């Protein structure tokens, strides 16, 4: 049973979200085998039609946004005697390693002859006689045995996993994430995907200043993100010539801000061409010199799309916590340099003035270089959940 998160609160347009969620689930489980699906009472019932390892299914589902909880169940006819007869066998795996338990019953089908407290009591008795070493603990049990009497059957379950939450990916449009090799940007992408955005990535490379390994690292991060974000389109922008031109033609202290503006301008063009509605970055106020308020203003000024910065007010510690949870932290902290640190000035201007920045920018024909970089951008596709790159440091 896949129970909705926020979608459950939606009104008349609820079914649109349900459709997207169900489509996402289907895509995600397709390669595991045949499943049947039906929806009722803010729940999608996913039933394997062949012998499939359900723990893999549950793991896959746990990454899908829009899901509030996943409950692994056995379905029985709505007859308490049948449930009681099968409970011992079905619950053994979960209860053999537990010390305490409780029973929670739900009677959605009011025509069922027993009332909720009675179901709980009697099922509790069945469990206790089958597993006499167990104790009841209604406050903090090791295992909660759930029996839900629904329209279409009695669902017995001992395993409930909290889902990824949020809105189904694809229900809110699509945006372009500026993905670096750092800790913050994958987290930013994850957070926006959680709000239902399709997140694709743009990355800038500067060989020979940056290495093949540095690029692979970022591709590995994009792959990791597909767990939550679904399929990701990855734009890899050749950035060497632009960086060399910046180094040779602009005041050193403006280098980083100028570079970030050009990155944003390239992202604008990709958004135009590919139909993205927003740019996402991993910027967080005061983290580095290019993330002071004035520097952010200067970068933002170059954007022609809304820029989402979901980690803007977060501490590094909080960002790291999420990156560990989404399993990007280890990859992010591999040591390879990215293009942001190449040529970075010793003393960057922390309070750049937009007039000075624009004057520096005008001193050289960056526009044609931007066009060229966009034209030469390489596109890769990473399939949902596929992990092909393994960087083992």
């Amino acid at each position, binding site marked *: 049973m896949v129970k909705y998160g926020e979608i459950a609160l939606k009104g008349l347009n609820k079914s649109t979200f349900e459709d997207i969620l169900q489509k996402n689930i289907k895509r995600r489980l397709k390669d595991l085998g045949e499943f049947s699906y039906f929806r009722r009472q803010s729940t999608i019932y996913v039933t394997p039609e062949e012998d499939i390892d359900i723990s893999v299914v549950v793991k896959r589902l746990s990454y899908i946004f829009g899901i509030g909880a996943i409950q692994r169940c056995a379905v029985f006819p709505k007859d308490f005697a049948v449930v009681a007869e099968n409970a011992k066998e079905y619950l053994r795996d979960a209860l053999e390693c537990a010390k305490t338990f409780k029973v929670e019953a739900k009677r959605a089908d009011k025509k069922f002859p027993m009332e909720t407290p009675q179901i709980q009591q009697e099922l509790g008795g069945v469990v206790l006689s089958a597993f006499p070493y167990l104790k009841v603990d209604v406050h903090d049990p090791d295992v909660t045995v759930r029996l839900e009497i629904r329209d279409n059957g009695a669902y017995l379950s001992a395993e409930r996993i909290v889902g990824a939450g949020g809105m189904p990916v694809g229900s809110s449009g699509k945006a372009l994430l500026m993905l670096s090799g750092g800790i913050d940007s994958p987290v930013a992408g994850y957070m926006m995907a959680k709000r239902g955005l399709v997140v694709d990535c743009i990355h800038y490379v500067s060989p*020979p*200043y*940056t290495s093949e390994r540095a690029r692979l690292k970022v591709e590995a991060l994009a792959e990791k993100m597909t767990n939550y974000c679904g399929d990701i389109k990855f734009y890899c922008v050749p950035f060497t010539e632009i960086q060399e031109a910046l180094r040779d033609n602009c005041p050193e202290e403006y280098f980083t801000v100028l570079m970030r503006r050009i990155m944003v301008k390239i992202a604008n063009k990709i958004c135009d061409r590919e139909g993205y509605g927003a740019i996402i970055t991993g910027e967080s106020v005061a983290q580095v010199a290019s993330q002071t308020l004035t520097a952010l203003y200067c970068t933002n000024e170059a954007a022609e799309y809304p820029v989402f910065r979901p980690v803007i007010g977060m501490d590094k510690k909080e960002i790291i916590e999420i990156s560990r949870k989404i399993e990007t932290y280890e990859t992010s902290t591999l*040591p390879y340099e990215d293009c942001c640190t190449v040529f970075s000035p010793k003393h960057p201007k922390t309070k750049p003035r937009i007039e000075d920045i624009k004057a520096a920018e005008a001193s050289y024909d960056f526009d044609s270089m931007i066009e060229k970089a966009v034209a030469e951008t390489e596109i890769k596709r990473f399939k949902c959940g596929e992990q092909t790159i393994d960087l083992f440091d």
Partner: protein
Amino acid sequence: MIYLDNAATTRPCAEAVAAVTDTMQSCFGNASSLHRLGLNSEKVISSARKTLLAKLGEGEIYFTSGATESNNTAIFGAVETYRRNGDKIVTTAMEHPAAANPIAKLEERGMRVVRLSPKDHEDFEQAVADAVDDRTLLVSCMAVNNETGYAVDVKRLYRLVKRKNEKTIVHIDAVQGFLKVPLDGDFISISGHKIHGPKGIGALYVKKGVRFAPLLLGGGQQKKLRSGTEPVELIAGLEAAVKNYRGKTERFSQLKSHLVSALSELDGIKFNSTDKCVPNIVNFSIKGVRSEIMLHSLEQQEIYVSSGSACSKGKTSGVLAAFGVPDSDADSAIRVSMCADTTEEELDILVDNIRKGIERFRR
């Protein structure tokens, strides 16, 4: 492709590749099996052992997973066995981490460690021997340094140390020195893939009469001193590599002087390798160009060199400091390491591309 990173690893020679595949196909028996297939494998191993002993002297050969294991076995094994001889280890500041880290671990456990730098001593072998006292249990010293090619006269070192304290055990990490310089030691570590053999195979030579406690316990293979089923195909590959090794000092010297004179015409080149170094390794710094940038730009032309030591994936190892190379130069250091197939033409192409790189990258 121009491959000039032979101190990192070498291209396996055809004979080694053939030996590995032939052995896998025709001689897959477990050397411990009592039947004929086991004996066939045992014969392959004995033959390899003899080949290695012919190069190293009287004693015993233990096959290992590589030089890291050989070093760990020698260092921990000797200290455990000869603990009563003292509590001091004399080593150098230029060791590879595969020797330096086991020694650091012993230091944590209470051993006293003295580390000598070549930059501080005109006569390095004498300096090592001078540091040995009657409480010195172990001397561990590499034969040839992997980053600069600096060569220690280990035959002389062995004599000097033994004269000072005959009980002191001498371990030589000869990964870069094997088949290139004369060797002597109570323990000598070697590696297959640095001499055109397979990766994952190495050996530890142990001089006659020297003992050590095993690092790995298990089925009791190799006289109970290195348990684990012997990888007979890799051992055959190692033997083939040794038999067919074609590197010649005279040839390397010609190549080195060719490279040095071509590089000397460029502006801002400083050599970190001296004439105390083996000729197949040339380390130099390029003023104003960070090593990694030069390395990746050469890579774009399919020329492969190294910055510092490849083992630490670009992290500066600090070993160059032991040779008196200042940090700024270490940051721009490039290591060219040659093999028997290296040609003057390849070196000319290298130097030409370094020249172009300097024009583009120098800051």
